[in-house]
């Protein structure tokens, strides 16, 4: 099939191509239009906003991988954020303990999502819609919408520190991305995860414990939502109960722009990361161009539709070739 394709067709068939071109065009346009774009500080700002979004996108990507969805990423993130903040401020927990406990809460939330979905056989959409409301309720019930401000200085310093244009905050997302790529490409559970998403029935027939893999995907998704929340707390320097309320669209946007199929089995760590880069560049460009911030919301919607359309086109072309 590949032999018959022209160079252009092959380029179109590549997952990353459109994204890479869009990112390059964006970089060139912004660099030529605004001298502030390529300054060290602006690059630092962009990389910093990249961190949380990337992990949120990964959290959704893992549930998409098995053909499920997780509407509770943001709600779970908010809960972990205030739990970590509360543990550090009210109970004086050392930072590593609080961070580990926060990750555990995230994983536990994901485990609940996974078990409920698998055990009841109810659509994951409804289950995570319900648990999202429950997580938000616990968050608001505990905090009554009041943030935790007095966090350990070292923790806050990590959120703002940088080496030239590189924020320290970037370290965890890069490690997580590498770990995920390795997990999905090289480990047995990772391959099983993709197999279940690609064809649950075939996977089950070949002896893969389907339910256990789905629960694992949800648990990892919760764990990553927790990690994103902890980074968001470090980034903001305070544990806001509102962390996560605006994650939903972003969490779906990046994997889908990166070519993930809702039906499962088809995800890419690199393409998702590139999609986040594109989103961050667009947001930054909007700020530099002093455009109404509401355009970001509008463009994100348009971008998802464009990506979905492009994927359809690619599928049709591939089918026809």
């Amino acid at each position, binding site marked *: 099939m590949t032999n018959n394709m022209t160079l252009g067709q092959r380029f179109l068939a590549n997952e990353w191509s459109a994204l890479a071109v869009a990112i390059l065009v964006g970089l060139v346009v912004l660099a030529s239009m605004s001298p502030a774009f390529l300054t060290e500080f602006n690059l630092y700002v962009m990389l910093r906003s990249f961190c949380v979004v990337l992990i949120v996108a990964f959290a959704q990507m893992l549930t998409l991988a098995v*053909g*499920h*969805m997780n509407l509770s990423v943001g709600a779970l993130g908010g809960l972990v954020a205030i739990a970590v903040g509360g543990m550090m401020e009210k109970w004086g927990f050392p930072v590593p303990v609080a961070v580990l406990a926060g990750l555990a809460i995230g994983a536990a939330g994901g485990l609940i999502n996974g078990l*409920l*979905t698998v055990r*009841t*056989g*109810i*659509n*994951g*959409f*409804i*289950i995570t*819609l*319900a*648990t*999202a*409301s*429950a*997580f*938000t*309720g*616990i968050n*608001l*019930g505990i905090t*009554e*919408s009041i943030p935790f401000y007095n966090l350990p200085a070292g923790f806050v310093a990590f959120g703002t520190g940088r080496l030239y244009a590189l924020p320290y905050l970037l370290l965890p997302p890069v490690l997580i991305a590498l770990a995920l790529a390795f997990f999905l490409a090289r480990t047995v559970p990772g391959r099983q995860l993709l197999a279940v998403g690609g064809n*649950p*029935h075939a996977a089950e027939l070949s002896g893969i414990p389907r339910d256990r893999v789905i629960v694992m995907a949800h648990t990892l998704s919760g764990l990553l939502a927790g990690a994103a929340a902890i980074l968001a707390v470090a980034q903001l320097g305070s544990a806001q109960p509102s962390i996560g309320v605006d994650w939903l*669209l972003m969490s*779906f946007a990046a994997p*889908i722009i990166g070519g993930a199929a*809702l*039906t*499962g089995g088809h995800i890419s760590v690199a393409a998702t990361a590139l999609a986040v880069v594109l989103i961050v560049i667009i947001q930054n460009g909007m700020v530099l161009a002093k455009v*109404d911030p*509401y*355009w*970001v*919301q*509008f*463009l*994100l*919607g*348009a971008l*998802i*539709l464009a990506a*979905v*359309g492009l994927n*359809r086109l690619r599928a049709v072309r591939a089918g026809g070739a």
Partner: protein
Amino acid sequence: MTLSVSSQSRARPSWLAEQSNLIGLAVIIVLFWVLFTSLAPGFVSSFNLFALSRSLAVDIVIGFSTMVVLATGGMNLAIGSIGVCAVMASGYLMQTIGLPIPVAMALALLLGAFLGWLNGFVIVRSGVNSFIITLASASLFLGGMLILSKAQTFNALPPEIAAFGRMRWGFLSPLLFVALGLGAALIVLFRFTALGREILAAGANPRAAELSGVPVGRAIIIAHTLSGALAASAGLMLVFRLGAAMPSIGQDWLLPSFLAPVLGGTLLAGGFVSVVGTILGALLVTTLRSGLLVMQVGNFWLQLFLGLILLFAVMVDRYRGVYAERRSLGRKNPRQTSGRSA
């Protein structure tokens, strides 16, 4: 990809099962009313009943808006965004242009229907899952509205608007009767018209419907158009209630929009709706919200309760489904029980 719970429960529930669900829901609602009334006498004060009837009206119509799309087996995440677009359009038309109220309202409803049509059209033409399309369009519509309105509230609307919102028929707001009237119209649509039947058929089994000559694409587009118009109606009800057109309307509709129909027994998989169930589901949600408010538990824990109730309701529904499946195992082939996205 279908979002089916399982292929067996796609079958329309029996008349008896449907009634038992409605009776169960009604019993739960009565229990909560007894509980709230005994704990907080203010719950049945005429002031609170009036406030309750106003928010019930909105919750019912939001529920309908999701229900008509669930009938086709799809979903509409853009309900809140369509609602707020209609709200801001009505505000602009009345306050800035100075159009008479009925004309402005009609145009706002048309806008809602048009945005819903747009959703349906793109879903049918692209063949992409309605979840993704409406997630994206929700962002698109909301962004467009914010860009155009600059997030400014229209609060110099004609005084008749707020006056109608405050109007009482006995204990109740006339808005509630509007909502019930819409419910009656929907019952007629789904029970007695060919169009309603086509929408349900398209949801129950698209391929079979297509083969038996039902225009499935058209049915889906019409359901989404209807959903848009209903979302706009819910938004306009809030304009009456608040006496202003605010850009923040609709942002918390997602959960209640699914709560009411799902509690009421409407199937996510499509093919079956319960209008009365949706009304009762909305009543349960409004009762809880109002009761917790009167008991001063506050809004903070409300979210937790709503989430747990939704979980409880879908699980009860699921186990009822399993029971029904077991009973019908002798007749039906249970082979396909595990749907792909279960």
